[in-house]
């Protein structure tokens, strides 16, 4: 395996772990959906009725605690919270 391939593999593993952790947090905050509902493509903002402002802010707080990162107010946008995938990208950018 080349170093580029190894780097790519590590990055992919890290992304998968981030997605798994995010889904865990989402299940705790919005428990009304079955676990099978959640995956990388699950849309959040505007797609799930329970994903209201309170849920969104709770999620931000939980992500900051879990990943030991700090979001800026500018990070709170519809684009970043569009789906599990976009949220994972945001977390990985900050980590």
């Amino acid at each position: 395996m080349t170093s580029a391939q190894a780097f790519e593999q590590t990055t992919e593993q890290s992304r998968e772990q981030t997605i798994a952790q995010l889904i865990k947090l989402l299940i705790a905050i919005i428990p009304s959906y079955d676990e099978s509902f959640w995956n990388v493509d699950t849309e959040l903002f505007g797609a799930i009725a329970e994903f209201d402002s309170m849920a969104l802010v709770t999620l931000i707080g939980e992500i900051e605690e879990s990943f030991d990162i700090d979001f800026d107010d500018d990070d709170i946008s519809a684009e970043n919270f569009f789906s599990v995938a976009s949220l994972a990208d945001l977390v990985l950018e900050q980590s």
Partner: protein
Amino acid sequence: MVSTDVEFYHGNKGPLFRIIRTPENMVARLLFIAPLFEQANQTRHHITRSAINAYGQGIQSIIFDHFGTGDSHGELIDANLGLWQQDILCQLRELKAKSPHAIYLSLPLSAVLLLTDEMLALTDGIMLLQPDFNGKRFVQQLKRLALAAGLTGGNRPTNTGAEAEQVVEIAGYVMKAKLLDELAGQHINKLAGFNIDCYWFEWQEKLELLSPSRLKQQTLANKNNTLFIHQIDDVKFWLATELQVAQSFLAQELSLFSTLTASEAEGR
């Protein structure tokens, strides 16, 4: 049948709504300090369950709403940190004067931001439920709620008035900007100087590592206090509903109530 009294307590600026459950053979008192803003609504159900459990163990429980919140008189815009703290202190002093029974405080989430040295001096122990001593972070989250409400179609935060008396509206809560500044200035250091029993309930999965910020807060709280940490791997009580409650938390808390009342009974 639980003996319950509902009354209005003479607060410093207006009557405060209180629910008091007094057992026949009382051995201790427990004053519940409500957390702030939306957290008060989120935790109301669990606090009631805790109060009933305390009553069952011989502990008088007192639940009240801060001035300008819940069923208490006044408007949030007329509230300030000092007033809320004085209202708590007055109740503690009255409890102290009334009988020699031990006094405990229950402080969930942001309620710890109201804690003062004087309160700690008047109590025999405190119960901290996922406390967040970081006032700056709490206020930041509150302000984010306003930003998020803007995204989800709600009202954006509004600021009106001159700077000194600036009024802000966040997610329907209208308050003086000064109140947020006061809360943002609160931190954990006050706990370190006191030697009282401190029961800390931390929501954490069994194999999960505590985040660095939580660990730092626990370390600071344990400087001089006798800190007992109870790990809870269950539904987060601030996200709980009537259908989904944190049973293992209630069980651990009940066990603590039982231990406290047993030691109080022995001590007398």
